[in-house]
């Protein structure tokens, strides 16, 4: 991070004029800083992924398997046959450029290969050569090219500069989803052993220990107990948190980021306080202690494998339905993939709130409810005792995480919850929120320090929007419903809008909740003193 330029310098360096050389003739820059560290061999071995080895993207020789071109070709063919999305998206782009300036990585870098259309063209050019007649005959004229090692390297660099946020897809007249293209390209890269550690290590951990961070069951319990102690210190109430227990109505699954790091833990404390307050009959699980699914960034098979734990554990513990915490891509997987891959979960029941009696018909098939939906419903039915003045020191805005926004449409529930617990709430500019939201630039497994400059560039649109509400409304807190956001937005805010903190929605709920029999609170969940009440 040492050589990260200052924010205003970085801003000035952005230039939207493409280079004079055509993109096929512009060599890819594989110098450090442009890539995340490759996956460690032992992680790949553990997961049974091909070509585990020691290598660096800065080397000329990437130690690819001898027949790597064949592998890519066959893999490509297989995916064209398996996914209509890929086939259609390879064929119908008219290069209208409507998506070009919608990607945060392009906006912050000006690198034309970060225009979604060109990102996809990196793959399309090979598709044309390998799978279309015109491309085979009229090479350059139709924009087709042979798959060479340089092309593969270019894929690696640019498909790991896409956070699969789908903002481009929203604006494309044909709904071409570059995130989908990226997913396929990454699958092909995996076939040759070209991948990054920041994804593969969490995947390996998740498979073995149940969560990304590799927290073992006993340690997981310890951490939760720490939080219980903190809650006791703040509220004077000792909560009981069931874990791995059978026979409870609900199993609660959240991203492990909430258990592990600041500020996710405050969100986690918020969940626990909420459950205690309403007397929810629930359990946590250490085996299924991860909502976030890095399999999504790896391959469809891996996604399925990791996701399968949720249903398996719900079944083993005999729960009736699943409640899910605040997480971005976890919800993309749950909303768009879970039931298809691992369902139908007939052993579960259609979720029904035991407190309000509301039946969640919108989750009738997956049997899994988002906590923002659950809490909003509680609030609507006046089931919570709240004191929003405890959040008076907070002037909040809300960051829509890409996946819940564009792969689900969860927009108003968190806002409803927030509006019940904070009095000062201000939206960022219209083009940067709701379905048009901008990514934190660390999604899809790119939340790693070795590409900090790329992340800060990609974070420009979000940071800029945040700064504008900071200047206009003194906003000092950005709430979000994603554990990756809670990690990635901190450096982003420090860089682009210093002075703004990041929190989960349920942290603010936890602050506002009046637990039965609690003592007069003096601090918020971060142990910061509460503002004095005016007499």
């Amino acid at each position: 991070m040492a050589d990260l330029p200052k924010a205003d310098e970085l801003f000035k360096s952005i230039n939207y004029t493409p280079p004079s050389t055509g993109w096929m003739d512009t060599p890819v820059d594989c110098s450090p800083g442009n890539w995340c560290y490759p996956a460690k061999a032992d992680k790949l071995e553990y997961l049974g992924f091909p070509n585990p080895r020691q290598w660096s993207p800065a080397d000329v020789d990437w130690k690819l398997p001898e027949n790597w071109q064949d592998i890519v070709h066959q893999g490509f063919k297989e995916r064209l046959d398996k996914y209509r999305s890929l086939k259609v998206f390879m064929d119908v782009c008219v290069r209208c450029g409507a998506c070009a300036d919608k990607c945060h990585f392009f906006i912050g870098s000006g690198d034309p290969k970060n225009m979604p259309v060109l990102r996809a063209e990196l793959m399309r050019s090979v598709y044309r050569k390998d799978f279309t007649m015109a491309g085979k005959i009229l090479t350059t004229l139709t924009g087709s090219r042979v798959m060479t090692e340089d092309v593969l390297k270019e894929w690696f660099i640019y498909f790991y500069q896409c956070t699969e946020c789908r903002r481009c897809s929203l604006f494309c007249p044909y709904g071409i989803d570059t995130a989908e293209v990226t997913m396929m390209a990454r699958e092909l890269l995996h076939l040759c052993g070209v991948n990054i550690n920041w994804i593969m290590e969490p995947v390996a951990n998740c498979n073995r220990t149940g969560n990304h961070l590799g927290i073992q069951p006993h340690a997981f319990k310890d951490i939760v107990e720490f939080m219980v102690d903190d809650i006791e210190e703040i509220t004077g109430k000792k909560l009981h948190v069931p874990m791995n227990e059978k026979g409870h109505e609900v199993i609660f699954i959240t991203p492990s980021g909430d258990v592990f790091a600041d500020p996710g833990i405050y969100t986690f404390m918020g969940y626990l306080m909420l459950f205690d307050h309403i007397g929810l009959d629930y359990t946590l699980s250490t085996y299924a202690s991860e909502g976030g699914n890095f399999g999504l960034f790896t391959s469809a098979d891996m996604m399925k494998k990791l996701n399968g734990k949720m249903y398996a554990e719900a079944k083993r513990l005999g729960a009736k339905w699943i409640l899910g915490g605040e997480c971005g891509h976890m919800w993309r997987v749950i909303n768009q993939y879970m039931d298809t891959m691992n369902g139908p979960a007939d052993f579960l029941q259609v979720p029904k709130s035991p407190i309000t009696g509301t039946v969640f018909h919108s989750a009738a098939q997956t049997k899994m409810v988002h906590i923002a939906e659950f809490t909003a419903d509680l609030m609507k039915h006046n089931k919570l005792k709240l004191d929003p003045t405890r959040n008076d020191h907070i002037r909040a805005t809300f960051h829509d995480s890409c996946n819940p926004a564009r792969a689900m449409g969860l927009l108003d529930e968190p806002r409803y919850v927030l509006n019940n617990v904070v009095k000062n709430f201000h939206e960022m500019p219209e083009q940067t929120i709701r379905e048009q939201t901008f990514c934190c630039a660390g999604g899809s497994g790119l939340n790693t320090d070795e590409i900090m400059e790329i992340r800060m560039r990609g974070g420009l649109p979000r940071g800029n929007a945040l700064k504008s509400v900071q200047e206009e409304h003194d906003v000092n807190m950005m709430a979000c419903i994603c554990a990756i956001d809670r990690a990635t937005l901190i450096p982003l805010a420090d860089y682009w809008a210093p002075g703004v903190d990041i929190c989960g929605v349920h942290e603010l709920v936890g602050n506002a909740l009046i637990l039965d029999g609690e003592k007069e609170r003096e601090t918020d969940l971060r142990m910061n003193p509460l503002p004095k009440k005016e007499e």
Partner: protein
Amino acid sequence: MNALYSLVLVFALVLLALFGVETAHMAKLFGIGLPLVAVAVFLVGFAYRMIKWAKSPVPFCIPTTGGQQKSLDFIHHNKFDNPVTPCQTFIRMFLEVCCFRSLFRNTKVALKDGKVTYASAKWLWLFSLLFHYSFLLIVIRHMRLFFEPIPACIGWVEMLDGIMQIGTPRMYMSDLLIIVGVAFLLARRLWDAKLRYISLVTDYFPLLLIIAIGLSGIYMRFIAKVDVMAIKQLTMGLVTFNPVIPANVDVSFYVHLLLVCTLLIYFPFSKLMHAGGIFLSPTRNMPNNSRIKHHENPWNDPNIKPHSYEAYEDDFREPMIEAGLPVDKEA
């Protein structure tokens, strides 16, 4: 450069027709053989591509949602950007196909005074609409060449299109608008450095080809004043598979025809297939109801199972017992 190649290509086509008909006297080939082949290639090619797409499965339900999901009663559901029923999805698709709704959202990014700004940019939407609808009108108008008697609706379209009553022969609005529309699309491609950067020969070629078709059409109508009855004789001959080459058809007609045939033949092999592809785009044509209804993946592999709880407990049994976590099997 790519634009230039395309221009040369289109010119070559024009010359080919001029030379072929005037000098080489191959009117039969250009007036009968080629159109029949072109139509066949177009129809078969189009169908082939659509079937090929339709045959690949849609394993997952992956709509890009553009608004509030259907959830709690008191939260307003955005039905057309985040549909859950087939009917809502149909409306979303209808708006997409007929009104280019996603393009309507378009914004333009600029860096101003240390800030990223987003301005509404509806030009592309407007001119694309103009272009596509003019094209549609023109195609409908041309249908009078293929029907005897001419269906009334074609007459209405013609009347509407020529409602401005400018000049003789009457000026059609669509002729003008299509040229304006395509010219904008072309100018945009040449003007905007980003777009120029991504544009291939295959992007310029259809634009230039359509401009050439438009101009040759206008030339036939206003300058060469071709004999429409003779042309109709030819086209009717084609549709009834009773081909004739009438005398005194101006060569400009053959130029026009060759260009149109080129477009028809080119169509199924090119990005122009977006016309069909849009209907099959999974991010747009699916309802966002995968939490409500089961969606089947035909190749879902039942053998992929999660790392089992038993294996997990075997791995961690002792510390779990020590920590007081319940276990299924005692040590």
